[in-house]
C-alpha cells in the first residue's frame, strides 16, 4: 500500500516536471528554431516552404551593420564596466566589515531601482541643458551645448549605468572569498601591491570576471528600452531589431533567425562560464 502511494507520488511529480519543461521551455524554443526556417506570411505569420533565407538575411547590409554596431556597443559597455567596476570592487572588498556592508548596500539600491527610471534619470544629466552641458558652459570650456542625448554615446552611458552593478556583484562575491593570508604571505615575501593585484587577486577572481562580463554583455545586446529612452533615430541595439521584427514588421522568420543566432552565442558564453570554474549554484547568486 505504502509503496504504491510512493510510486504514484513519484510519477505524478515527474510527469508534472516533464509537462512543465516540455510546454514552457522546449515548445517555445523549438518553435523559434522552426520559425527561423519558415517563410513569412502576412496572415498566419508563418508558412512553408522551409528555407535558409532568414539566416542569409543576417549577412544583409543594414542588418549586418546593426548587428556589428550592437556588438561594438556591448563590447565598449563590458570593457567600461570591467575597467571601472573591478578596481572599485577590489577597494571595497578590502575595507572593514561595517564599511563594506554600507558601501555594498549603496550599490544595491540603484541596482534594485527600476531600470527604466534610472535611464530616464540620465536625461537630466545628458540633455542640452542638463548637468554636463550646464557645467561645461558655465566653466567656459564650450560655447554651444554639445549634443549628448539621443546619440549612440547616450546609449553607451545608459547601458554602462544600468549594467555596472552586474559586474560589481559577481566580482565582489569572488573577491570576498579570496584567502587574505595569501595576500599577506606575498606581501611578507616582498611583493608590491601591484604584483599582488595582478599575480594573485586577478587570477583568483577569473570566475567572477567571466560571470560579470557575461552578465553585462548579453543584456547590452538586448535591452531595447535603453536605446528607446536615450538613443537617436538609428538603431544600435540588437534587441530593438528583434522586437521590431516581431511587433512592427511582423517578420517572424527573420526575427527568429536572429534570436537563434543570439541563443547559440549565449550557449557559447554559458560554456565559457562553466569552464572558468563557475557552478550553477553561483549562477543563482548573481541575481
Amino acid at each position, binding site marked *: 500500500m505504502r509503496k504504491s502511494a510512493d510510486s504514484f*507520488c513519484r510519477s505524478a511529480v515527474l510527469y508534472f516536471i516533464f509537462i512543465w519543461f516540455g510546454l514552457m521551455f522546449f515548445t517555445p524554443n523549438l518553435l523559434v528554431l522552426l520559425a527561423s526556417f519558415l517563410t513569412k506570411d502576412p496572415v498566419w505569420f508563418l508558412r512553408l516552404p522551409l528555407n535558409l533565407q532568414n539566416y542569409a538575411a543576417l549577412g544583409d547590409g543594414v542588418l549586418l551593420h546593426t548587428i556589428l554596431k550592437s556588438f561594438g556597443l556591448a563590447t565598449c559597455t563590458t570593457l567600461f564596466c570591467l575597467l571601472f567596476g573591478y578596481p572599485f570592487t577590489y577597494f571595497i572588498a578590502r575595507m572593514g566589515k561595517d564599511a563594506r556592508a554600507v558601501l555594498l548596500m549603496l550599490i544595491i539600491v540603484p541596482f534594485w531601482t*527600476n*531600470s527604466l*527610471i534610472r535611464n*530616464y534619470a540620465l536625461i537630466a544629466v545628458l540633455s542640452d541643458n*542638463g548637468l554636463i552641458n550646464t557645467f561645461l558652459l558655465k566653466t567656459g570650456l564650450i560655447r554651444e551645448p554639445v549634443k549628448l542625448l539621443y546619440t549612440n554615446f547616450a546609449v553607451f552611458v545608459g547601458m554602462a549605468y544600468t549594467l555596472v552593478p552586474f559586474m560589481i556583484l559577481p566580482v565582489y562575491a569572488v573577491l570576498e572569498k579570496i584567502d587574505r593570508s595569501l595576500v599577506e604571505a606575498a606581501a611578507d615575501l616582498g611583493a608590491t601591491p601591484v604584483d599582488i593585484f595582478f599575480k594573485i587577486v586577478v587570477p583568483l577572481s577569473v570566475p567572477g570576471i567571466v560571470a560579470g562580463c557575461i552578465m553585462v554583455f548579453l543584456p547590452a545586446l538586448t535591452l531595447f528600452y535603453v536605446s528607446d*529612452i536615450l538613443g537617436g533615430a538609428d538603431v544600435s541595439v540588437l534587441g530593438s531589431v528583434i522586437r521590431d521584427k516581431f511587433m512592427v514588421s511582423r517578420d517572424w522568420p527573420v526575427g527568429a533567425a536572429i534570436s537563434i543566432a543570439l541563443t547559440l552565442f549565449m550557449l557559447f558564453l554559458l560554456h565559457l562560464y562553466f569552464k572558468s570554474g563557475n557552478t550553477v*549554484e553561483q549562477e*543563482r547568486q548573481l541575481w
Partner: protein
Amino acid sequence: MVTKLLKALYVIGMYFFLYIPLIVTIIFSFNDAGTAEHWNGFTTKWYVALFRDQSLIKAAFRSLLLAAMAATTSTVVGTIIAIALHRYRFIGQRVVFGSLSVIMMSPEIIQGISLVMVFVILGVPLGFVTVLLSHTVFCFPFVTMTVLARLKGFNRNLVEAAADLGATDVSIVQKILIPLVLPAVFAGWLMSFTLSIDDVIISFFVSGKNYEILPLKIYSMVRTGIQPDVNALCAAMFFATFAVVLLSYRLVRKK
C-alpha cells in the same frame, strides 16, 4: 598618500556616477518650473498630480498583485522541482539542470518572443494569464536553485532513517523536507517578486493591449522625454526601493 587620495576620489567618483542622475531628477521633481532648466521655487504639485493619476495607481496595484501571484506560482513550481531533483533519480535529470541554467542566463527578449509565439499560435488571448505564466517561467529556476542549495547542505541520513522507520514519501516531504527548506522558499519568493515587478521586456511581449502593468506604464511615460510628473514618479520609486533595501538589510543583519 597621493595614491590613497586618488583611490578615495575614484571610489567616490563611482558612487557619483551611480547616484548623480537620480539625485538631480529627485531635486527637479520639486521644481515648480517643471523642467531641469532653472529653479523656480519648491513645489509638491507634481506629486499631487502623480497620486491623482488613476491609471497609474491602477497599474501599480495590478503590478503588485501580479508579482505576488507570480512569486507564489514560481515558488510552488520551483520548490516541487527542487525537491524532485533532490529526492529522485530519473531520466532527463541532467537535461532539467541544463534547462534551468539556460533559462536563468537567457536574454529576456528571447524568452519573451518564444512565449508570445506559443500563445499566438495556440490562440491564447494575451492578458493576465499569459503574463502570469511567463513570469512564472522566468522566475521558477531561481526558486529551484535557492531551495536546492539549502537541500544540498543537509544530511541525507535523516530521510533514510525516516524511511526505515516507516515514513511514506508524502510524510517525509511534509515533516522533514518542507520545514527544512522553508527559509529558502521564502527567499525564493522574495526574489521572484522583485524579478516579476521589475520585468519590462517579457511583459512587453506577452501582456497584450488591455492589461497594463506598472513597468509598461512607466515605459510609455518615459519614452516621451522629460515630464515633471515622471520626475516625481522617479523620486517615489527610488525612495520606495531605498526603504525596501534598508528593511531587508535590517532583517538579514538581525539574524
